[in-house]
């Protein structure tokens, strides 16, 4: 067992996969010097310039080159520094990469990974560097989506993504990069599409992803002091989605709260809520609650940012209101 930060876990997973499979190559801005978030540190030195390529500021060329190389049989991992920048190569990400296997009738495979820093997390990055954009990706059939919540998940999901024969976007949370954890020593891969119950509970299911996993765990601790036992599910991937894990939990708890950093207008939480409303309707004894990032562009000043970010108090209040409302309406 080694203690790794989330950012070290990413570099370690990249190193493991690069050592294992010489088709794995990296590209991105500043990746040769370790990247601005130090997630590729040491890889150029270890694997040489033919495996780690610095690019110009050309996100379309980065994503497109990854796509072409994947078509030719490599397994590229492209860093898109901040996930907000997917917007500058959205055509490659949404219109080309996820569609080419299908539209060629299966002539091509697309074993590539796009990865980078996502989310707010109270760091003051603002509306053009602090968005949580899993929702953008989830709008598009044909691309898998992973959002690790811990260093061990960052390692295991990235390794799995690299081994997957389909395109995967890994959304790393920039506020988690310095979080530390014991990580398994030897080859550690977490299959895509399997959620984890990270805390069991009987009163209510909290569905979380990435940074909201920690928020929900902290909220569950606090709720426990109020006599509420919340079950926390870490989805780990949105596509494939482990809907069965959510439905099974709701069957046990009968109440569902979805906690996402995506904005409320349309985020992945809506998809979970809709699935529950359709498939767990007869299990539910209370309204499905969504707690989302504020539906505004992310502000920078700490006082404003704290107001719109998802937070432990908001989750606690949401769950307590739900259970209170429930008592009222059933009582």
């Amino acid at each position, binding site marked *: 067992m080694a203690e790794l930060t989330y950012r070290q876990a990413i570099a370690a997973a990249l190193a493991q996969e690069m050592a294992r499979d010489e088709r794995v*190559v990296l590209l991105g801005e500043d990746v040769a010097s370790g990247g601005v978030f130090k997630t590729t540190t040491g890889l150029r030195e270890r694997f040489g310039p*033919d495996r780690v*390529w610095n*690019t*110009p500021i*050309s*996100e*379309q*060329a980065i*994503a*497109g*080159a*990854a*796509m*072409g*190389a*994947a*078509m*030719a*049989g*490599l397994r*590229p991992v492209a860093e898109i520094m901040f996930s907000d920048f997917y917007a500058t190569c959205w*055509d*490659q990400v949404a*219109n*080309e990469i996820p569609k*080419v*296997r*299908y*539209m*060629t*009738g*299966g*002539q*091509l*495979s697309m*074993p590539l990974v796009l990865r980078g820093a996502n989310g707010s997390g109270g760091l003051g990055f603002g509306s053009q560097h602090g968005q949580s954009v899993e929702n953008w990706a989830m709008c598009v*059939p*044909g691309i898998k989506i992973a959002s690790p919540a811990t260093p061990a998940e960052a390692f295991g999901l990235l390794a799995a993504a690299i081994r*997957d*024969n*389909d395109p995967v976007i890994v959304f790393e949370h920039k506020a988690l990069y310095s979080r530390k954890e014991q990580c398994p020593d030897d080859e550690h891969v977490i299959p895509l*599409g399997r959620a984890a119950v990270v805390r069991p509970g009987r009163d209510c299911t909290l569905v979380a992803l990435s940074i909201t996993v920690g928020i929900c765990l902290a909220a569950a601790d606090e709720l426990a002091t109020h006599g509420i036992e919340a079950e926390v599910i870490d989805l780990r991937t949105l*596509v*494939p*989605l*482990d*809907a*069965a894990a959510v439905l099974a939990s709701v069957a046990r708890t009968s109440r569902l709260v979805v906690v996402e950093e995506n904005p409320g207008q349309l985020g992945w939480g809506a998809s979970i809520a809709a*699935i529950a409303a359709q498939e767990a309707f007869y299990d539910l004894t209370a309204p499905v609650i969504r707690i989302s990032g504020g539906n505004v562009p992310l502000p920078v000043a700490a006082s404003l940012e704290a107001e719109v970010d998802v937070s432990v108090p908001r989750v606690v209040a949401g769950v307590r209101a739900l259970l209170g409302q429930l008592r009222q309406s059933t009582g």
Partner: protein
Amino acid sequence: MSHEAASASDGAGPPGVPSDPDVPSDPDVPSDPDVPDLYARMSYLRAFEERADSLYRQGMIHGPVHLGLGHEAIAIGAASVLRHDDYSIGTYRGHAHALARGAPPEAVLAELLGRAGGICAGKGGSMHITSTEHGYYGSYAIVGAHLPIACGLAWAARIRHTSQVTACFFGDGATNIGAFHEAVNLAAVWRLPVVFVCENNWYMEYTPIADVIPVALPAADRAAAYGLDRIIVDGNDVQAVRRVVGSAVAAARGGQGPSLIEAHTYRLKGHSAADGGAYRPADEVARWRERDPLLRTRKGLLQAGLPAAALDEIDRQARDDLIAMTERVLAQPAPDPATAWTDVWDDGGWQWRN
């Protein structure tokens, strides 16, 4: 690196827009023993596209169709200098490029007609014809998108030292989009073995290219911005295309990096099969019809002594072949609806959740 210069200019060129001093209507006298074969290949493309046009007008093709009528010399000339394992990649105007690499015409036609056996299983249609087996890595319908992808194909070859070259075809209008800039730039910075071929037919849909570029030539006048040579070729002269693209391919294969070639040509019909092309002055169209690449090669072959009957026979065979093929394809059923749900993922399926 420095490639062979453009083919000779007649200095005058057709008056009006697009004026193009580089494309004469002179016969293309064959200097190459392969010319009769090149003619036959062009003739087949011509017959294929005319067939597609006619089927479209009969309402038998679902979705848009963009024909390569008039562009045959580029597709055939370029394909003739590629190695079997080289990559090529093109646009929605891509039938010709797929066929030129050896994609089976019947499977392409089945794709257009929405019948079982389509080369993309009915999922791509005319705009996405692909035959990776023949090195043609696809047709892309969003302008400019495939130029970065071409870089990736070439990058893989560079990393693996396979000496494979990637040829990437696109239009004059595509040179205005950001993806063009990022791709040509990256190719130059990374010295990728890719040959970018701009098929300048002087129009982006209904708009003359001169109205929307600040330079005279959309690709050639931008090459220097990427440290590349200014290369122009008469795209209606199959031998010139062969020479100029051949030299760029050799340079790429030899590790000398990318080229950007501007090939001058003209659409014989509208932007898509649904477009009559009424915005183009009749005399301009007429002048370019005289520069039809098939006509010019034919004239050259006749001058060189080939009998007209032999050429007519080539043309006739191509047309007959396509008529028979159409019947066979139309006799096929539509793709099984259940196959709409295959091929999203590598596991063959489409499921995104359990």
